[in-house]
């Protein structure tokens, strides 16, 4: 069996209207642009998108936002896309803002069977409003709940056909944690190799986390996003 999927449409078979979807990337860097494109073309809406940013204006998740398919965004830095603020002003989208460390830790917790955890981050700030506080060893912490999704769309550098993944430089970012925290995990990659070609010591995401892999056809370059393949 190979986990290789022929195209974006088959890769997104599991996605339904109303789903919660994690999308990897730090802005466009390490974002699964091919899968985002397929999601934009799919007839689904009311999506909750968990991603550090909602892309940039008209790029990446920014396109999905423009199509009004996002009901709610959960992230740490929506400021990177002005359209998000405008959509929020118009009441078209809900937003949940989390510190970046809390966002990544909550996703990790969701993938690792941890129900919730206490962090010092945000204690005493507006983002801690309505969050339970607890003192541990004399220091103030707030409770944060784990985050999971129906589907995670991630980007890696190379996959083997079993689904083992390695990443490329700072395009790694949220992708490995999101790979652990969704019912269905689809990875878009630059290259697919045979099992054994990735060193067992350097595989970052073991194949048990990955349900499907797709060759990327939208690539981030210094000149912007280009299509190929």
């Amino acid at each position, binding site marked *: 069996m190979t986990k290789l999927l022929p195209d974006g449409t088959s890769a997104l078979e599991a996605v339904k209207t109303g789903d919660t979807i994690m999308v990897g990337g730090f802005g466009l860097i390490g974002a699964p642009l091919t899968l985002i494109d397929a999601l934009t073309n799919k007839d689904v809406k009311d999506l909750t998108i968990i991603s550090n940013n909602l892309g940039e204006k008209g790029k990446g998740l920014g396109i999905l936002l423009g199509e009004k398919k996002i009901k709610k965004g959960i992230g740490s830095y929506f400021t990177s896309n002005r359209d998000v603020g405008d959509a929020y002003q118009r009441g078209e989208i809900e937003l949940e803002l989390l510190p970046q460390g809390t966002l990544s830790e909550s996703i990790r917790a969701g993938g690792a069977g941890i129900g919730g955890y206490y962090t010092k981050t945000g204690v005493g700030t507006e983002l801690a409003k309505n969050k339970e506080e607890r003192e541990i060893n004399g220091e103030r912490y707030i409770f944060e709940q784990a985050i999971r999704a129906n589907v995670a769309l991630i980007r890696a550098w190379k996959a083997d056909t079993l689904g083992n993944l390695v990443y490329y*430089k700072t395009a790694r970012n949220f992708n490995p944690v999101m790979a652990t925290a969704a019912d269905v995990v689809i990875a878009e990659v630059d290259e697919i190799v045979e099992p054994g070609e990735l060193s067992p010591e350097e595989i970052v995401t073991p194949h048990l986390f990955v349900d499907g892999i797709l060759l990327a056809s939208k690539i981030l370059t210094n000149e912007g996003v280009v299509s190929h393949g």
Partner: protein
Amino acid sequence: MANEIQESIARRAAKELNGPCVVNLGIGIPTLVAKYIDDEQVYFHTENGLLGVTDVDEENKDPNLVNAGKLPVGETIGASFFNSAESFGMIRGGHVDVAILGVLQMDQSGKIANWAVPGKNIMGVGGAMDLLVGAKKVIVTTTHTAKDGSSKLLKECTFPITSTRSVDMIITELAVFEVKEKKLELVELMPGATLDEVKEKTEAEFSIRLKEGAL
């Protein structure tokens, strides 16, 4: 791009970094600090997942190698990449020695506000709150006043604070303050600045303990 005021603040902040140490630089003036460091034991960490950030030439830019401000960077020899959860584990867990951050406002106890403006949508916080709770030392680099000329060093912040933790040092184009026991101490005037000017442009209360030779 960066003006002389910003450069002078960055240059002064660079003097605070003596290796071996691990430093996280925020967006804006903090990013400029790196170019004034030639101590190869000052290791730059960026929260999107790299320890060992360095400059990159125009011709070696890689779209997938960026800092937290999404600007192209390079990697040093001995650098390492890691995921976002691991990166913030380093930050919250106390493994980053120094964070240099920009601010919108500071209060006279050293608390800062740098992520939201009331009345505007609160839509970006990034790693600011994590760095405030986790970095062993936090240095603020900022212009002394806002664009409208008002002091950024206030008795109390009117913008939402980033953390209940006080920063350790504030560096502006006019002065250097240390924060001791939640009180500001003016320890240094920047070249060309006068005590009167600092007093005039600082709403926050501060004590004066200018270091020898600092005037």
